[in-house]
């Protein structure tokens, strides 16, 4: 036997241990490790590309602030507050939605359909609902990161809005709703293009209609009724309430929490029951 093959043999003995030795090790995937794994995975994804993510996530809100805040905003009646104060909470809510949906949904769809790396998650002993919960949290944190950047950017535009712990809690819930929706959409997608289609049909309409850029009071009753049940309406309305110093309604929190829970349950059912993933 050559030195190299002796070394290889020793390595192999180290790598492949006896069953008794392996089972005596403490190792167990559980709900906590599942959530932390998903969070770590999203962190790894973020830290590779944080510069690009940061710049890309600020471009659209910046343009909205210039075009609507400085431009068209002067023509929109938002009561006794400047339009930019109305717009910024809406942009923060939008950022939570877009970042939650995109960072989780798009990435998840790539992992499932293109890279097929989700196979390893599916076969692993990690409890799948806890992994989904971690993805939801990670997506929400990405949304909050952009939200905070928007708040800082808005200072250039002279906003004076109130931000407190409830504001951040609402941002978190909003991000969790759309991250869970992103996972659900990615699980149901047959091709990667389905995610873009889903975004066009579901995310884009909410961007414009859900109390983000203009008040919905003057909408027809039926349209207003539909808009009022959508999650982004509750996020932007609640955030604006806090930003104006009046506080959010508990209804906003309950509706967002209910959406997040419903999407998570649905996603978990699909993950456990769907025959072909």
């Amino acid at each position: 036997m050559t030195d190299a093959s002796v070394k290889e043999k020793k390595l192999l003995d180290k790598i492949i241990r006896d069953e008794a030795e392996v089972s005596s090790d403490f190792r167990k995937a559980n709900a906590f490790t599942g959530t932390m794994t998903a969070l770590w995975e999203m962190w790894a994804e973020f830290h590779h590309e944080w510069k690009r993510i940061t710049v890309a996530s600020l471009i659209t809100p910046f343009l909205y602030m210039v075009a609507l805040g400085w431009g068209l905003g002067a023509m929109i009646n938002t009561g006794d507050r400047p339009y930019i104060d109305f717009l910024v909470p809406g942009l923060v809510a939008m950022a939570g939605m877009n970042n939650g949906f995109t960072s989780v949904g798009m990435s998840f769809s790539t992992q499932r359909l293109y890279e097929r790396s989700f196979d390893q998650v599916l076969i692993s002993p990690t409890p799948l609902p806890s992994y989904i919960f971690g993805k939801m949290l990670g997506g929400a944190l990405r949304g909050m990161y952009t939200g905070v950047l928007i708040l800082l950017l808005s200072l250039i535009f002279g906003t004076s809005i109130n931000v407190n712990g409830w504001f951040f809690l609402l941002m978190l819930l909003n991000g969790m709703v759309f991250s869970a929706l992103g996972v659900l959409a990615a699980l149901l997608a047959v091709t990667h293009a389905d995610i873009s289609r889903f975004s066009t049909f579901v995310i884009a309409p909410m961007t414009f209609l859900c109390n983000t850029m203009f008040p919905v009071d003057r909408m027809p009753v039926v349209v207003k009724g539909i808009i009022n049940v959508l999650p982004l309406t509750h996020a932007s309305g609640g955030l604006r309430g806090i930003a104006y110093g009046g506080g959010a309604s508990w209804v906003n929190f309950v509706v967002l929490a209910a959406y997040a829970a419903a999407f998570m349950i649905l996603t978990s059912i699909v993950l456990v029951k769907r025959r072909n993933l």
Partner: protein
Amino acid sequence: MIRIENICKKYPKSTQYALDNVSLQIEKGEAFGMLGPNGAGKTTLMSIITTLALPTSGNVYVDGEKVSRTRTDIKSKFSLVTQHVSIRKDMTVSEVMELAGRLYGMPLKQIKEKSDDILEFTGLIEKKKSVARGLSGGMQRKLMISRALLTEPRIIVLDEPTVGLDPHSRRKIWDLLISLKQKNITILLTTHYIEEAQNLCDRVALINKGKVSKIDTPERMIADLGEYTVDTFESGKLHSEFFFTKEEAYEYAKDIPGKTKIRETTLEDVFIKKMGTELGDEL
């Protein structure tokens, strides 16, 4: 022990069953090979065993326990090397390993130590900080094998693990599989390199059109066909005849005009004969 009971699998929009009432048993510590033509159902069966896909009907049991996506205790015994490359390509080699370890609840210290040993064995240690996207196809496959070893499975499922590997790396993987066998780890292997199955597997199943057509040891399969083969070349076409004794083979060969070759029968001959009979001239 893995017990596969009456597994049927039909994919949506397909008129045919990918697996049609498949039942078999794989003993603990056994190296079990699955051979069959493309589309025979081997990968589907592997996917069902590891819960990647769920069967239309039937069940899989490991040590008497029914396998499902929620049975995390059973799933912790498995590792899978898929036929397709299934790694996060935006992650570095060490991150890919860390993700696998975390998914199996391994402590971080153990992940890092074990990863280094495995990557050294598979020759990827120099690449541990490289992003997976930049690795060659062969290196990506080695990374998948490394990842499968990290979690110290009791059952390792390998779907064509050596595709795209150079001969040296392939031999190294063979050594690895032999070591896994020595440690009583159950191995499920599909491969198109039939020599690989012949050398490594205790038993093989021939699968065709979603059905198991034969299960036996490679030696018995070869003995049943005849241990000696006479190859004849007629009008540019290879024709093989099989014989139980060398004398019979020589007797036959001496009357054949033109070029003939007498050799030992291999599992590939069994495969071609069996599948050729079942598929007609499709092969």
